[in-house]
């Protein structure tokens, strides 16, 4: 299962970098430059990505053309937003350097920092 997850990332990486639609065979050929991998495996994982809504596909002759539904930036922004913002991480999944705080608290932080710098400066 973990290997499939890694392959998902590799396939998305290709399609995002190319910025165009591609067949599973094209992706397989590119992956084969690094290591041997079966066409059927790539096809299976591409279909998983399609069912997850990350790829669209259309018939091109006899082969399927796969295309990323959003850009890498859009995907990153959406998923990172979910992971880092909104509800404060209830289960402590990630340990953040500093939690999200309100604008008033940020103001208080800046004031305290400025005051300390003035003290040490004078």
């Amino acid at each position: 299962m973990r290997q499939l997850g890694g392959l998902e990332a590799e396939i998305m990486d290709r399609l995002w970098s190319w910025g165009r639609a591609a067949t599973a065979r094209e992706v397989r050929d590119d992956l084969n430059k690094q290591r041997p991998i079966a066409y059927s495996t790539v096809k299976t994982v591409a279909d998983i990505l399609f069912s997850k809504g990350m790829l669209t596909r259309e018939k091109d002759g006899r082969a399927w053309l796969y295309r990323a539904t959003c850009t890498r930036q859009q995907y990153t922004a959406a998923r990172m937003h979910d992971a880092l913002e909104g509800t404060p991480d209830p289960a402590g999944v990630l340990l953040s350097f500093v939690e999200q705080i309100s604008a008033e608290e940020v103001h208080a932080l800046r004031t305290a920092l400025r005051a300390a710098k003035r003290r040490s400066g004078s």
Partner: protein
Amino acid sequence: MIMAGAAAGYALLAGAAVPYALARAGWPHRSPALGVLAWQGLTLSFIVATALAVYHLVLTDRHVHDGLVGLLSACGPGQAVSKAVASPPTVADAALLLMPATVVLLPLGWLARTAWHTRRERRRHADLLAMVGTDADDYGVTIVEYTVPAVYCLPGRGCRIVVTRGALDVLTDEQLRAALEHERAHILGRHHLLRLFARAFARAFPGLPLARLAEAQTALLLEMNADDRALRFHSRDALATALCEVAAGRVPAATLGASGPGALIRLRRILSPQTKPHRATGLGVVIASIAAPILPLLLVCVH
């Protein structure tokens, strides 16, 4: 009945009185590791005392005082052993023992559940990082192209530190290294496990002042502990400014609910040198944290 009352009083003290005093005390902020230990000792004391109180409530005057078996039986599930010698245990006896056992099993159950849930979420996040992150070897971190500044670690197996592009943009090299050292302290100290314990206990006993305070205070004290480690290698100014910059970049559009004054407390603490508590104080806290959970057991056994 007296023992049940005494144990219940002890549980009440640990669960609803001492937590308020400990949350207000100054020394945990000066030595966060001691503070975390004290909260854990208090939590364990509450569980032990509550289990004993329930036990004595359902099994009054059934003490057996004969040697080691008697000692064991007076202290917990050993009762079943000694009773088996005297007379065959009935289903009712087993059912009675279940009640005090529940007090212990409840937090353990939540611990398993919370651990499983957290593990699954961490895997999901690791999958996300595999897709959108790039490894930066010069810092030993994963970089994500995301405009909001954030520095965090994904603990557990395959742990790693993550920095967003936004954080790289607002932090200087020295500030970034200070923030990274803070995250490294979380990983090296296995802070996620301590957070997990506190979280599971809070879920098992919702509404209990100790549970609520222990979870919040443990989280804050662990942040302070990580700050202290970062300060061993980096300047106060670098860490404080990094904290300020990352927090400022993360301000949400809508005001957040009571997130607590954690960031400000930490900033003030970073900016002013902390004197460690006296060694005697430290030793006292360690002894008290270990003795407090054992004390009710001893009292019951001697009785």
